[in-house]
């Protein structure tokens, strides 16, 4: 039987969800029997491949590149999972949305106020969006896996349920934050 193609993506987030994914420890070895990791921050592949079965997307959508990237991912993925609070709610990344002119205030704070030398806005990086968004505000999301981060057990449960062709039930199992 062909292995299920799984990808994991890291947008604006702290990578904590990926750490939690890795925290599945020995269970990852069991998973490896069933899945093939076709794209991930821990896999050295540059472009997001076609025909991916399941994609875990960590982090909020905060800049133009991520927006573009997420749309490509959506087109090439059968089942897209919003992975962790940033992807589900915007979480800490979206706290900047509370500021009036959030992009300017964030840049000012990070690259001018808190910097001792060569105070300047970055120029060679993707432009920040006016607001940071949870995934479902930009593309269709098939499954939500909240948590900051979601626990390794929960990730394992969800992934195994999906692999077995069931819809995981989160009632009582997850926790925001």
């Amino acid at each position, binding site marked *: 039987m062909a292995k299920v193609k799984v990808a994991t993506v890291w947008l604006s987030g702290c990578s904590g969800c990926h750490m939690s994914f890795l925290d599945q420890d020995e269970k990852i070895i069991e998973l490896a029997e069933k899945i093939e990791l076709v794209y991930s921050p821990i896999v050295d592949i540059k472009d997001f491949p076609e025909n991916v079965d399941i994609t875990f997307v960590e982090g909020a959508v905060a800049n133009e590149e991520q927006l573009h990237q997420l749309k490509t991912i959506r087109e090439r993925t059968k089942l897209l999972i*919003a992975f962790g*609070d940033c992807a*589900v*709610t*915007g*979480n*800490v990344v*979206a*706290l900047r*949305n*509370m*500021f009036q002119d959030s992009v300017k205030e964030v840049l000012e704070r990070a690259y001018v106020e808190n910097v001792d030398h060569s105070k300047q806005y970055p120029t060679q990086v993707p432009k920040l969006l006016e*607001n940071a968004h*949870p995934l*479902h*505000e930009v593309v269709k*999301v098939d499954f*939500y*896996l*909240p948590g*900051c981060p979601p626990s390794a057990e929960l990730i394992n449960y969800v992934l195994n349920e999906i692999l077995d062709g069931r819809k995981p*039930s*989160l*009632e*009582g*199992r*997850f*926790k*925001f*934050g």
Partner: protein
Amino acid sequence: MSERTVKLVIDGREVFAKPTDTILKAAKDNGIYIPTLCYLEGLTAYGGCRLCVVEVKGNPKLMTSCTTPVSNNMEVITNSPRLNKYRKQIIELLLAERTHTCSVCVANGSCELQELATRFGVDHTSVSRNWKRFEIDMTHERFVLDHNRCILCTRCIRVCDEIEGVHVLDVKRRGKDSSIVIDLDEPWAASYSCTSCGKCSAVCPVGAIYVKLKPLSETKKKELPEFVVERRRR
């Protein structure tokens, strides 16, 4: 003490209640769970969060179980797909209304809204979230009032008024612009009426009023009003 003389049916189960009981009380006494948020034992029922709504046979309207008294032969449904859908929507609306970011909240892990989201499987908000920014009142030496996390359940107002007997807190403005005020909308430190008793922080279901430098798990005392009321009765 009055007797349990009222017979009613809750979710198909025949139960007995005192004539003065509410549906919520009768359900709770019989081990039937109804979600609540603004309700707190010992305080006047408010009927604002609408989570405890139930269906009462013969009544086309949904009734808040925290305010509706029991009556003989009443048939109550506390758990139906429709009710649970509404409850999920209400939790979503609360999460979306202000900037509830659990990961950076003092109440993380002891928050009633967070618990309800878990329980009802509210894994995201289908309505867009608001990011309106409210000022945080940190002027008081011990307490903080963070409107960004307030769900306007008014437990703090009621505990201050009914248990502490001071009525420092109230609501200003209306609708989506409602917010809790201290005295006549003054900074907390400037309040003459506040006794700094901290009951407001003890009953806050979320992380809107809390004690500085302490996680809510250490300062929360949900049972406080009930305890005081019970003592007063003696």
